[in-house]
């Protein structure tokens, strides 16, 4: 009887173990890219890194459902779909990536070993080459999938060298290190490298926490040295023939276009600097850019399951 009970318990333990490890769907946002961000949802043992002042860290599995993981992966991937970068949940893809172009983001319930925070990372660790991971702690985020995706994107930004987007007064004194989009209270926009949870968050050109006299262009920093990721080729964007954005007319300062659905859009210059962003509604749309923005710009648009981009000569 005891032996049978032991077999049953062992079987249940194995079943739970396999179920837990089988729960992480293997997803890739852009398999063509070698530069890789690995979202690690299934727990980890971490040792021999700057996080290990007090010995080994055992990070518990996230416990998220495959549907939640898929949704979080998609949300994060959308923020990086401009770049030649693969967001993966597959550890084998991470292992194959170049050591100086990869980072592991451990998404785990508890960060007690560190203290009260929604996550932590070492700035620029994407290129360190020593597999130092970054962290997202789910409990302080109320296990909310939207918050987890925003926090993970923020931490990935740090590992790619980004500092916080901050707010300064006219004398250059810092008002707040983390911008929540206060510069325009009527706007629903906030920087991903500020507080990305309560408004529509995106990459920004702004003053970083390192000083009011500096400008941090998030997109240019991610794409450029030392990460050397670059941008995706526009022909490789996913474009559904039924869902599209068509340029009707353009001139310096104005772009008129027709949209087949509700999309977010961003316009960049060829160096990757964000010029403007917003929303497209179905039908006719008019986008106003700075009239001094001439030359080649890139329009990128993203919807629920499709995205696309195209070059426009202004």
């Amino acid at each position, binding site marked *: 009887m005891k032996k049978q009970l032991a077999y049953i318990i062992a079987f249940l333990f194995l079943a739970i173990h396999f179920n837990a490890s089988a729960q992480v769907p293997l997803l890739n946002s852009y398999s063509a890219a070698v530069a890789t961000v690995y979202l690690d949802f299934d727990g980890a043992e971490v*040792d*021999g*890194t*700057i*996080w*290990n*002042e007090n010995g080994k860290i055992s990070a518990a599995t996230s416990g998220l459902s495959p549907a939640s993981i898929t949704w979080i992966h998609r949300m994060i991937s959308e923020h990086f779909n401009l770049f030649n970068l693969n967001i993966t949940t597959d550890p084998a893809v991470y292992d194959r990536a*170049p*050591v*100086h172009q990869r980072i592991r983001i451990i998404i785990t319930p508890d960060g007690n070993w*560190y*203290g009260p*925070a*929604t*996550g*932590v*990372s*070492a*700035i620029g660790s994407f290129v*360190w*080459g*020593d*597999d*130092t991971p970054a962290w997202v702690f789910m409990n302080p985020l109320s296990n909310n999938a939207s918050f987890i995706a925003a926090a993970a994107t923020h931490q990935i930004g*740090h590992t790619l060298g980004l*500092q*916080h987007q901050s707010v300064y007064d006219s004398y250059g004194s810092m008002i707040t*290190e983390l911008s929540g989009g206060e510069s325009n209270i009527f706007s629903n926009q906030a920087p991903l490298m500020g507080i990305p949870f309560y408004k529509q968050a995106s990459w920004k050109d702004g003053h970083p*926490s*390192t*000083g009011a006299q*500096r400008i941090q262009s998030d997109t240019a920093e991610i794409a450029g040295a030392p990460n050397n990721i670059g941008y995706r080729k526009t022909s490789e964007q996913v474009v559904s023939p039924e869902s599209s954005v068509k340029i009707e007319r353009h001139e310096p300062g104005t772009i008129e276009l027709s949209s087949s659905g509700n999309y977010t859009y961003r316009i960049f210059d060829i160096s990757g600097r964000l010029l403007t962003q917003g929303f497209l509604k179905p039908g006719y749309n008019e986008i106003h850019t700075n009239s001094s923005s001439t030359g080649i710009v890139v329009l990128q648009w993203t919807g629920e399951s499709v995205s696309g981009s195209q070059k426009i000569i202004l």
Partner: protein
Amino acid sequence: MNTLKTILSCFCLLFSLLLSAQKKESPTDIPYSNKIEVSNQALESLFQSAENISIDMAPGFHLNGKIQNKSEHGSSVTSLLIKVESRPGGMLSISRYKDPKGNIVYAGHLLKLHDADGMMLVEKDQHYYLVETQQRFLVAE
């Protein structure tokens, strides 16, 4: 006339010296309070050390510590994690790798979690510096 030439030459010399000095004074684009130049030999000796380390990294900067971890990442990167006894609780993480041109490159950080300040190893014009900066520029939440 000769006096004028001498004065102008002196100005030029002074100006070029100032420029080169300024160049050396900014090994990083983040604000920092202090910098210490460390030699390649001192950095390399860390990787040749056994468990315990006692090395003069620079004049006035002696490193006492113990290697907690030594690991290889891929075929090109060797990393050390050193518990620094002269800075209680501090961890020096340092990596050595070859760049695409075959040059040996070092990168690293000296941190203690939740401390106000940390140090970053940076290379500028083939010189290595440990620069002291606010830790929030090195580790962020």
